[in-house]
């Protein structure tokens, strides 16, 4: 069953081939069997999942089933889940049981999806390798000596190893697309404001956006449709109708692809791009050309500044957002504080890991008196330039294509000594966050047995076309159907 896509599982449920309880039990068994090595889950909610599955089966019997009714999924542990620990990968929230559901969680639940549990992640979503989690690192199902990417590394590993058909993720600088690429699956980060941030633990509020990690664009469309839409509880949520993403894919994508113009930014083909990924990109471009797409060279001249810009904006917002962890209202509290300052300082120093502290410190520094103009204000101006570069490009092309990451999955521990080396892994993904654009990573081949992904960046709110373009590619290629041998068929 686990070989199947969400769409195929939905058909199996609809035809009565299996029930949601059977399906859910199958995935829970797989988690039990395989997750000891992978560590993709922080919390497995087996009992609750089976209860939800039983409800889904009853709803189906009553004729109240939608496309996601009874489909098991997993949630990144950054999303609040009522009555279930929501740790954000941090000791700080190890004892936090959320009193409410995040909007994303509630919407998927209303759509009938069954939650298997909460997936591992870099602490507070700060990382590109899932090595900063308080709950231990996650292993890449394709090669256990390598990272799955991050920060949504648990979601990526779970979907790649078919421990869940699909999972939610969040993407602040590439945290959906980069692990999707490194784990050989499909990931989409929608336009900023498309999906409600309510109940999603804040890292950098002007960049954070939730999305989906799944086997295919078609599956991602099913989940994204359920997750998207206006929510007055998120002040940056955009009030705009949600198209029928999955339904839109039923139309002939070849017809829709013919005559489209894809921009290939020369900044994406820099020296940092490893040859294997470059080859995968070139092959994908050939596939699109064979489908009638015209590839046009474009330039995003300020894109090389995206990583330093991000490492001012994101830490600045992080230092502000994470000031709420004070050891008083919720979260970790140190033993026997001598006074209030000791309570704050020790609770925070014992509760946060090193990478989170580095980001808080960087953010505090760039926002401190005398430095605000030089760093934060300057970075927000550069951000405007990067955004304008994309706008210029989209005046000539329908879509932007490039690599998702410079290389395939790297060895565990390879980049932990130098934060800058780790930060540069997000060089191709950060631009879309700074500009607020929707973007996807799609599996496009292998480099020495490790998956490589290509990235597609769409114009604002052009998720439908983005998904269609990815789906069109997946209709004529087979990369997205590959699963690591150890986790494939029974």
């Amino acid at each position, binding site marked *: 069953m686990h070989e199947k896509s969400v769409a195929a599982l939905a058909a199996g449920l609809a035809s009565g081939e299996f029930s949601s309880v059977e399906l859910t039990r199958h995935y829970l068994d797989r988690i039990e069997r395989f997750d000891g090595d992978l560590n993709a889950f922080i919390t497995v909610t087996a009992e609750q999942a089976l209860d939800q599955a039983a409800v889904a089966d009853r709803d189906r019997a009553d004729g109240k089933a939608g496309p996601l009714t009874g489909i098991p999924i997993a949630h990144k542990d950054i999303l609040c889940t009522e009555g279930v620990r929501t740790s954000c990968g941090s000791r700080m929230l190890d004892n936090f049981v959320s*009193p409410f559901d995040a909007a994303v969680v509630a919407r998927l639940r209303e759509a009938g999806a069954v939650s298997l549990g909460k997936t591992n992640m870099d602490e507070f979503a700060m990382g590109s390798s899932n090595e900063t989690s308080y709950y231990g690192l996650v292993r890449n199902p394709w090669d256990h000596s390598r990272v799955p990417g991050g920060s949504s590394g648990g979601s990526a590993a779970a979907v790649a190893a078919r421990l869940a058909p699909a999972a939610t993720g969040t993407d602040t600088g590439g945290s959906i697309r980069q692990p999707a690429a490194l784990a050989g699956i499909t990931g989409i980060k929608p336009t900023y404001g498309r999906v409600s941030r309510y109940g999603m633990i804040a890292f950098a509020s002007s960049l954070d956006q939730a999305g989906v990690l799944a086997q295919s664009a078609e599956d991602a469309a099913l989940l994204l449709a359920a997750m998207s839409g206006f929510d007055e509880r998120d002040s940056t949520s955009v009030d705009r109708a949600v198209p029928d993403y999955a339904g839109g894919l039923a139309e002939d994508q070849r017809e829709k692809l013919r005559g489209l113009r894809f921009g290939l930014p020369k900044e994406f083909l820099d020296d940092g791009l490893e040859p294997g990924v470059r080859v995968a990109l070139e092959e994908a471009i050939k596939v699109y050309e064979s489908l009638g797409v015209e590839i046009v060279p474009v330039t995003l001249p300020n894109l090389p500044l995206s990583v330093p810009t991000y490492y001012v904006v994101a830490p600045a917002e992080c230092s502000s957002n994470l000031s709420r962890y004070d050891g008083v*209202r919720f979260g970790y509290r140190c033993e026997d504080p001598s*006074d209030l300052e000791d309570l704050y300082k020790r609770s925070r120093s014992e509760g946060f890991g090193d990478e989170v502290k580095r980001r808080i410190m960087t953010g505090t520094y760039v926002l401190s008196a005398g430095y605000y103009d030089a760093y934060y204000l300057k970075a927000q101006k550069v951000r405007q330039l990067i955004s304008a570069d994309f706008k210029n490009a989209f005046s000539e092309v329908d879509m932007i294509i490039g690599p998702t990451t410079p290389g395939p999955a790297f060895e565990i521990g390879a980049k932990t000594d130098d934060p800058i080396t780790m930060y540069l892994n997000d060089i191709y993904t950060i631009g879309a966050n700074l500009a607020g654009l929707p973007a996807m990573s799609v599996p496009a081949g292998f480099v020495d047995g490790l998956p490589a992904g290509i990235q597609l960046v769409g114009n604002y709110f052009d998720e439908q076309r983005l998904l269609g373009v990815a789906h069109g590619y997946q209709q004529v290629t087979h990369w997205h159907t590959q699963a690591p041998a150890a986790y494939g068929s029974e």
Partner: protein
Amino acid sequence: MPLSSKDVENIAHLARLRFAENEVPAFTDNLSRIIDFVNQLEAAPVGDAPPMAHPLDQPQRLRKDVVTEKDQRAEFQKNAAAIEAGLYLVPRVIE
């Protein structure tokens, strides 16, 4: 411009963090490298570009000033380490 360990201690205080003496050199080194790295922005030709406030140029939405939340204090305080009579307890601040 490398940061000194004194700088790091000052920033740590602003951030309400505390580092053990043996952690300070590594943090100072890492933080200096990060600041060096973002210093590339100094040379960026921003001209009179306005700072970005929202990726979609969307103004902050306002809502009517009415009570929308119900009282869930007891529920929320289940996550607190120390409460008494509906209040959060902290070390004594006023002698």
